[in-house]
């Protein structure tokens, strides 16, 4: 069966892409590995989602349901409990998929959108020292066990990483009867929303140890203790600052990575910074007809921006299969001073859109700063911003007529 567009992933990204890709003349398929649509939002039972998109404060499942509703009445095929295990491309894409009903089989498409989300970094990727007992999990795993399966993973908990997942789980575990002894954060500031520090830590008197890292893990069978230490500006542990906590559980909230290893046989260019595909303003990868969006492209902090980005991916994939998307040579978009990365990393100046939307992250925290978009020595546009932080993705919209040439673009942050 030849589809026009196959979307891999039925979470916020995949569903948003499906909605905008839809056209009664096109055959579209969404492939989802779980038994229900919704993706990671299903286990994010706290609220705070949808403030920008719907002007509402929704819980994760509510946001997922609203997004899924948008495609309910559309003629889009959905394969649940089905996993993509391989993709190759000849002229079109050949996907190997499998499920319990039909075993392993193939589906084909003219275009594919990767919306497969991200996975959590584990102990191995951050090289945590010490013993390897039971009781060390990622925060997301603990969240899944708690919110979907209904099990607690421990009684006395410490959390490494003050990103939102870590903060949310600090509160969640406390509400369900665990004792959370603290959250340690390597950086001198938290990566999570300030409001989460207040309503997840302060509300429950859970201490936050900034500029601290774990320097030892003790426990033969089950975790017994962890030791944290303060670090200096070079992240070297400072002697004499050891603090020991007797805990049976350590939750890791130490970073997310786009989950795209299944598709690497397609050999699309991958950014070493985002760990996701390198794309142009059409969210198209270096492989023609292959698009990416959502956390599978780069890790987002707000699902609202996932929806926004994925809707565009859907539109562009539709344009591609209907022959109205033309690919030309694209130039680099370069992250300049104090900018960690910019998406898209490639810009085709002959593109049809009225404007280009850039998503970017800073490398530093700043109360005030100005983002500057340059082509060579020419200032194309600037935007003053407040409360800049690496954890908060920023967006800049540049009208098409602002470009002065087809020179590479540099976006940097000037701190006031």
């Amino acid at each position, binding site marked *: 069966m030849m589809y026009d567009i196959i979307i891999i992933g039925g979470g916020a990204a995949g569903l948003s892409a499906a909605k905008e890709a839809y056209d009664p003349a096109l055959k579209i398929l969404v492939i989802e590995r779980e038994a229900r649509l919704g993706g990671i939002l*299903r286990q994010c039972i706290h609220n705070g989602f949808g*403030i920008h998109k719907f002007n509402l404060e929704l819980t994760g*499942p509510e946001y997922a349901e609203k997004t899924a509703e948008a495609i309910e009445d559309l003629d889009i095929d959905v394969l649940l409990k089905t996993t993509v295990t391989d993709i190759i491309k000849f002229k079109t894409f050949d996907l190997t998929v499998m499920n319990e009903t039909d075993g392993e089989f193939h589906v084909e498409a003219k275009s594919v959108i990767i919306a497969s989300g991200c996975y959590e970094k584990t102990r191995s990727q951050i090289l945590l020292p010490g013993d390897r007992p039971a009781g060390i999990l990622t925060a997301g795993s603990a969240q899944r066990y708690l919110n979907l399966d209904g099990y607690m993973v421990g009684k006395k908990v410490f959390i490494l990483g003050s990103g939102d997942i870590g903060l949310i789980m600090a509160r969640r575990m406390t509400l369900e009867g665990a004792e959370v002894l603290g959250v340690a954060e390597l950086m001198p500031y938290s990566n999570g929303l300030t*409001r989460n520090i207040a309503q997840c830590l302060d509300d429950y008197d859970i201490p936050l140890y900034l500029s601290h890292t774990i320097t030892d893990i003790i426990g033969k069978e089950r975790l017994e203790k962890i030791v944290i230490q303060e670090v200096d500006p070079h992240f070297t542990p400072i002697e004499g600052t050891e603090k020991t906590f007797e805990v049976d559980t350590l939750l890791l909230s130490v970073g997310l990575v786009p989950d795209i290893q299944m598709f690497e046989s397609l050999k699309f260019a991958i950014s070493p910074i985002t760990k996701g595909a390198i794309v142009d303003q059409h969210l198209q990868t270096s492989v023609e007809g292959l698009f990416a969006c959502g956390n599978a492209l780069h890790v987002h902090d707000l699902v609202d921006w996932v929806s926004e980005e994925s809707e565009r991916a859907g539109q562009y994939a539709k344009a591609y299969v209907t022959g109205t998307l033309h690919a030309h040579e694209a130039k680099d978009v370069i992250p300049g001073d104090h900018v960690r990365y910019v998406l898209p990393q490639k810009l085709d100046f002959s593109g049809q859109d009225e404007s280009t939307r850039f998503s970017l992250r800073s490398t530093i925290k700043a109360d005030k700063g100005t983002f500057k978009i340059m082509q060579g020595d020419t200032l194309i546009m600037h935007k003053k911003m407040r409360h800049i932080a690496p954890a908060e993705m920023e967006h800049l919209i540049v009208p098409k007529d602002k470009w002065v040439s087809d020179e590479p673009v540099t976006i940097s942050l000037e701190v006031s």
Partner: protein
Amino acid sequence: MATREMICIVCPVGCHLSVDEKTLEVTGNRCPRGEKYGKKELTNPTRMLTSTVKTNAKIQRRISIKTSDEIPKGKIFAIMDVLNDIEAKVPVKAGDVLLKNVLDTGVDIIATTSLEH
């Protein structure tokens, strides 16, 4: 002059507020909602509560819920205990009231996930 420092949680900006404990004067807010929040934190702090309750659905053993409005902060753990006794029987639609007026707060417990079977 005793003041309480706090972070406003009304919106993602997270203004740092100072509230005078006697006069309830609020400084540091960037909008009127923040002023309201600061005062309320010292007089009657409330929170939205999200959690899960048991369900007899096949696909997952817990169903997510929220309170229909903010509840007194001091009643959070008592309400968590009440949640232990609720079982949401399928079919459930997001928005369904699973328990009315929990612990006399005037606030309901609402399902936030829809489960058919």
